[in-house]
Structures are given as C-alpha cells and as structure tokens.
C-alpha cells in the first residue's frame, strides 16, 4: 500500500450504525446505538466522550468486530471489522484490563506477541522495549494478578502496541493511572499521532481529551450530539485573555484604565493557578530521585524504538 493512498482515505467509517442487545430469546433488551455516523481520518486523535452508558464501549467493540451491528455498516481500512486481516493493523486496549492472572508481565506480552506474524527475535525485542517503555522492568517477574490497577493498565497498553498498529483504539486509556502515568500516556499518544498513527479513544476525563484530541464526538444515549474539531467546539466567543508577569499595583491600574478607555468595558482580573497536574508531577519527580527501590511502576522510558518510525512532524498548530 502506498503512503498517499493510505493518507487520503478515512481509517474508520461508520454509517447509520445501530446496535440492539438482545436477550436469550432474541427479544430486544437495550438499544445501545441509534444511528451513529462518523469518520476518522488517518493521523488524527479522535475522542469519544459521553456519560456512563452512552455507548462508547459498544461503538468501540463494533469497530473491532467483537460485536455485530444490528444494522448499518462499518469499514476499517476499507475492510469489514470481522475480517481477521484488519486486526493486524489495529491495537486495542480494553476498558477493563483483562489479563491471564497467572502469567508474569513478560509472559503476558510474549503470549500476545505470538498471535502476530513476527519472528522470535522481533518478538523478544519488542517485548523488551515495551517493558522498558511502560516502566515495569522492576516488576516483570511478578504475576500480573498481583498488579495494581494502573500497573495492569500499563501492561494492557503495551499489549496493544505489540504489532506497531496503524490504528490504536483505546477504551478509557487513562483510567486507573497515576497523574505521571496519565501524562506519559498522553505524551505517548501524541508522539504516535505525530508519527502518522491514528488513535481513537474514549474517556470521561475531559481535561485529558481536551489536551490531546484533534476531534471529538459527544455521545449520549447512543446518538452523536456534537462532532467536530476540539478547538472549534471549545472556543469561547467574544472573550480575550491577556496574561503577564507580576506587576506593581500602579502599573496594573494604568493598564486596566487603558483597556477601559480603549474598549469601553471593564476587564476581570484574577491570578492564574498552576494546574494541579504540573504541581503533582514536580513533587513526584523529586521524590523519585530520593527513593531507592520503588514498589510500583516507575515512570518508564522513552517511546519504544520499534514504534519510533515515520516522520516526526508537528501537528497543525
């Protein structure tokens, strides 16, 4: 497949998608999706938002062919989701981390790697790099059943990246993670998107979505209520914010008076706060340097080298 062909076509197309869950006697139980239309373009980070039970996970499972649509159609890379070949280019992180409890981290990843068409050397290399990347090198010999939720989540993420997927589907990727892990995942998602990978994610954490998603869809009760570029949707109309360093009261008064005379309106004044995320990360970073033998996950390394391919261009500003 040529580069240009894959960049012009949408990666995911869903058209008038309906899903009704039925009970054993085939009677309809829940109408979880009611006519969803959406497209995801290559290289973009697409966010699915919505309250609990809105149908985000259902939509994701339909994309993966785990559920069958009741009507409507879905194409992924121009293939049906039930086509096994489409899975070679997809990575999926389930909503709840689901692992074989008695395998260690390394065994888990090796097991999943064996489901792909990779030779033994490539498998070992990728597993090594991913364990390093998710920061579980210290805990790799413990069975994953003993892992904390966030540690399990990291394994889940590593498992989704084994095949260096072109499309990454993440169901609530940041749930259960500590703020450092959350920042790290967000950085990772952005790094992958800059290298041309497509990401579809669902989340409740609006701040995370706002940070990284190029486009979002807001679902409610199985319907899409808003769809568009994050920036366009969030821009507050008719407001401007000016930020500048600490100044004397005197100078402040002059500036405010100038604005008032120039525009005829009285501006609001407040002090910006550092986001808690930044503050927390600073504290943890200094703590990490003093702790010799941390029990949980450490902050992990850089993007695994095998994922670091493609040009690292900046997303459009």
């Amino acid at each position, binding site marked *: 497949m040529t580069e240009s062909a894959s960049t012009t076509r949408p990666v995911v197309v869903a058209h008038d998608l309906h899903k009704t869950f039925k009970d054993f006697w085939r009677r309809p139980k829940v109408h979880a999706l009611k006519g969803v239309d959406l497209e995801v373009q290559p290289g973009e980070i697409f966010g699915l938002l919505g309250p609990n039970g809105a149908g985000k996970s259902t939509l994701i499972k339909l994309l993966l062919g*785990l559920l069958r649509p009741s009507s409507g159609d879905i194409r992924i890379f121009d293939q049906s989701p039930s086509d*096994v070949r489409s899975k070679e280019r997809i990575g*999926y992180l389930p909503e709840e981390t689901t692992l*074989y409890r008695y395998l260690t981290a390394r065994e888990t990843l090796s097991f999943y790697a*064996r489901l792909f068409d990779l030779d033994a050397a490539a498998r070992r290399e990728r597993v090594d790099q991913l364990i390093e990347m998710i920061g579980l090198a210290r805990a790799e010999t413990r069975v994953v059943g003993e892992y904390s939720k966030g540690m399990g989540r990291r394994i889940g993420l590593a498992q989704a990246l084994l095949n260096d997927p072109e499309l990454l*589907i993440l169901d609530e990727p940041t749930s259960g993670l500590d703020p450092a892990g959350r920042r790290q995942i967000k950085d990772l998602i952005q790094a992958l998107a800059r290298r041309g990978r497509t990401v579809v994610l669902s989340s409740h954490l609006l701040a995370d979505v706002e940070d990284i998603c190029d486009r979002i869809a807001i679902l409610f009760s199985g319907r899409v209520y808003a769809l568009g570029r994050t920036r366009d949707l969030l821009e507050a109309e008719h407001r401007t914010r000016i930020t500048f360093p600490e100044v004397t009261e005197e100078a402040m008064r002059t500036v405010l008076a100038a604005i008032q005379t120039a525009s005829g309106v009285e501006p609001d004044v407040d002090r910006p706060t550092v986001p808690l995320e930044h503050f927390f990360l600073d504290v943890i970073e200094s703590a990490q340097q003093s702790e010799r033998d941390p029990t949980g996950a450490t902050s992990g390394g850089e993007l695994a080298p095998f994922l670091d391919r493609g040009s690292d261009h900046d997303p459009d500003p």
Partner: protein
Amino acid sequence: MHRLPVRQLIALSGIACLEVIRQPITLLLMVTCTVLTILNPMLVIYPFGEVGKLPRDSALAFQLGFGLLVAAYGACTTLSREVESGTASAVLSKPVSRENFFFSKFLGMVAVIVIYSLCSILATQLNQMISHELRDHALLALLPLTPVAGLLAAAVINYTTRRPFVTVAFASVLVCLALTTGALAYGMHGGFQWRIVPANVLITFALIVLAAIAITLSTRLRTAPTIMICSAVLVLGLVSDFLFGRFTDENWWGTIPYMLLPNWQHFWVTDGLTGGGSVPWTYVLNAGGYAVLYAAGVLAIGTLCFRWTDVQ
C-alpha cells in the same frame, strides 16, 4: 503463510489448558479420584469371584465419574470465563480467527483430560497391585498416600521456587504416581497390566466427547444450564440402548435420539476384561473413530454458533 494460525493455535491451547488446570477444583477432583482409586481395593473385605475385578471396575468408574466432572466443569467454563473476564476480547482483537480461538479451547480441554487420564491409568495399576499382593506385602497399604506425597512435593517446590502451587501439583502428582507405578511394576510379579489400559483409553474418549458437547453448549448458554444439559446428555447416553435402542427397529422416532445421543456404552468395556480377557485394539480404534466423528460434528456446530456470538 499457514504457520501463523498453527502457532496461534498452540499458544492459545496452552493457555486454555493452563487456565483449566489452575482452577483448584480440577486438582481437587484429580487427587480425589486417584486416592479413591488406589484406596478402594482395601475397602473390599469379602471379594467374591475373580480377584481384583470389583476394584478394577470401581477404578474405571471413578475415572469416568470424576472425569465427567472435570470435563464438564472445565469445558463449560473455559470459554465463558474468558468471555466474561474479557481476555477473549483482547485475544480476538488480534489477528486470531474465531474458529481458531474456539478450537483452541477444545484442544486445551483435550490436554487436561489426557493428563487427568494418565493419572487415572497409573492409579488403576496401583489399584490392581494392591488387590493382588496386599496379603503378601502389607506395606502396599501406604500407596494411597502417593498423590498426597505429590502435593507435599508441590508445596516444597512452591516454597523454594515460588512457582504457582496448583500447576506444580498437577505435574508432581503425575510424576509421583509414575515413579511409584514404575518401581512396583518392576518389582512385583504381576507387573504392569497393559490389558487394562485400553479400557482407560476408551473412557478418555468418552470424556473428550463430553468436553466437545459442553464447549459447544457454552457458546450460547451460561454455565449452570450447560452443566445441567451435559448431565442430561450423560444420563440419557447411558440408558440410550434401553430407552431408544430397542425401538429403532419398529419406530422411526426412537431412531433419532438414538443416533443423536452419544452412546456411552461403546466406551464402557469392563466385561471384556473379566477372566483375564482384554479389549482388542481394533475395538479401541473403532470407538476412537466414533468419538472423533462425534466430537467433530458437535464442534462444527459450536464453531458456527461462536462465529455469531457477541464477545463482551
């Protein structure tokens, strides 16, 4: 090109087998079966007729009875546990076909049943040695402790190497039984009674057929109804000669259930062993063919069902 599905099948079957073995209930059933098998000749106080016949029949009955529980419970849960816990959706979002995933569950169960049956075969041999030689060698009364020794060994290995107890125990019980049987077969004049093995093998076939039925049912039903239907199939299959077989000549309606139900009588040949007789291997092969065809038919239906199932 064809190597990937095969590699997937091996990896998935291995995991399926381990997941069943790691359920403590499987180990419990296996140990109970072997201990009872080895113990029961000492409980037969007034043997009449052929020496060792009653204990031998009981040993085979234990293999069948406990094996049915192992097969039914393991097979009912192997698929539904993975679907419920979500590991199935993680695996099926990889380039693994539904057919491959489904079949690997069956192969995993076959592996469990084979290991279980190996233990049972060895225990049956110990059972026969006790029946014939306990009078001369009182120490044989200690043999029922062999599986227990396996458990102790597993505890030691678990303590020293931190490997999971249940999995190690499966292996160590098997090894203990094998060593004991080997040593005694070498020393006793009866030796290893190969003529009994075909009877054990036939029962293994029956267990495999039951596992195929249980896995197929579990694609559509929950665990409780699956186990109930399996029990019904089991009972009806045992009495199918009596219930339906005698009508097949006169009535067409007797023929259908008779053809559809697995006929367990084919796998139960204790009478053939009476008076030093043996079961010809050609019979075993024929019964094996019946088992393979039956299981293949059932699994084909299961594959179709699983293809259209929603995986949560």
